[in-house]
């Protein structure tokens, strides 16, 4: 085998491996139990809000996916009580809520500039392109 042929074979092998990876990402079953999407209200938040600082505490809408990442966790590490949408979380307290069905929920929320907290619960991504797209998107958001 010439050197050129070896390089081509190696590249082919690696390419095949890559394709297999993509196929896995598109068709492999989703994890059985949902993972949590956690938001933490850091210490000193109340003081910073009082000082008139505009804090970008939470995104809106918040996206969750049924069966995949379908548990919303809000942890308040601040000394003060905080309200996130309809949830009043005491100092050093955690609120944990699982979602089992897709849907969109809107709540009044003073922590959002728009005054609204929107929760979007997406259905689990179907096998194929949707699942591949979901895995790539969650890779971007988790890194």
């Amino acid at each position, binding site marked *: 085998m010439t050197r050129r042929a070896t390089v081509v074979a190696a590249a082919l092998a690696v390419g095949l491996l890559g394709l297999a990876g993509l196929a896995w990402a598109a068709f492999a079953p989703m994890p059985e139990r949902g993972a949590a999407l956690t938001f933490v209200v850091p210490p000193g938040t109340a003081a910073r809000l009082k000082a008139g600082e505009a804090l970008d505490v939470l995104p809106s809408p918040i996206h969750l996916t049924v069966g995949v990442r379908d548990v919303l966790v809000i942890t308040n*590490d601040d000394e003060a009580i905080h309200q996130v949408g309809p949830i009043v979380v005491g100092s050093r307290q955690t609120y*944990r809520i699982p979602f089992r069905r897709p*849907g969109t929920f809107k709540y009044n929320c003073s922590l959002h500039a728009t005054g609204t907290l929107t929760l979007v619960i997406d259905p689990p991504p179907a096998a194929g392109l949707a699942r591949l797209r979901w895995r790539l998107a969650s890779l971007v958001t988790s890194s």
Partner: protein
Amino acid sequence: MRARRALAALAVPLLAAALASAAPASGAAFRSGAFDPPRQAPDFTLPAAGGEFQLRRLQGQVVVLTFGYSSCPDVCPTVLAELAQVRGRLGAAAKRVQVVYVSVDPERDTPARLRAFTEQFDKTFLGLTGPAEQLAAVWKAYGVSVVRKDLPGSKPPTYLVHHAASVFLIDSAGRLRVMAPFGTPSDDVLHDVRVLLKESDAPILVEEPWVRRAAVMPDAKPGAPSNAAGYAILRNRGTAPDALVSASSDVSERVEVHETRNMSGMMMMEKVDKVALPTGARVELKPGSYHLMLIGLKRPLTPGQTVDITLEFERAGKIKTRAEVR
């Protein structure tokens, strides 16, 4: 060039593998939104037929608390119909569940009108209304947003009240355990009420557990074993006497039951074999009295963390509890 393409192709399976390792959520007893650690539900008083209503007086029962108004066209009837269904499906246990419905419309909701409304769903539902400022304090404590919206062009002029229609579950010890936002399936609310009823069936209750870490002395050697004290309220609601005999925790080498005693002015701390819990007893493990000693901490404790402690009783056996570090 070709090498770079090959490298990119290799990266895909590696990244895919990284994605597969998302941590699963830990199993939870509740199906709806739960608070950890649970804290006492904000207490309130409101005028009621034959005197005053006080939330705290409902301790011993599971309280289902929700908010709304009698002129509500859509959301409130849905919530109340679902709660009536939940209560119906509880059978005999429904006697130990009280639904409390607090008005968000003090202007139109008179006690009589509110009663007429709630009774359409279930005769046991307790509708509460009162002066606007008194109600507003209750809304605020539970984070219920209330916004009045006038209906333009309506004759006579009328309005709607936009309000959060969450359902709050308060356990028999008066602690706020669950907040189920509007839209939570009634099966899930039923499930969570059953969890709280089952909990309150247990003859021995361990309430408000907490741990105080010992002060770290400036001259302490690094790695020196340190201790912490644990406190809680123990209640025996069963028909037989019981006793706390031992305790354990995975954060310390061992846990002992101690008593602080005042021996003619000198405070003595002694290990005790058991803490007796006669029928109906309420014994507080507190500073200066009975308490748990977590001896030889395996990791430093910081306020806000929780610590799992297992208490062992003579009759009731082992009861797991989660204590907050303060």
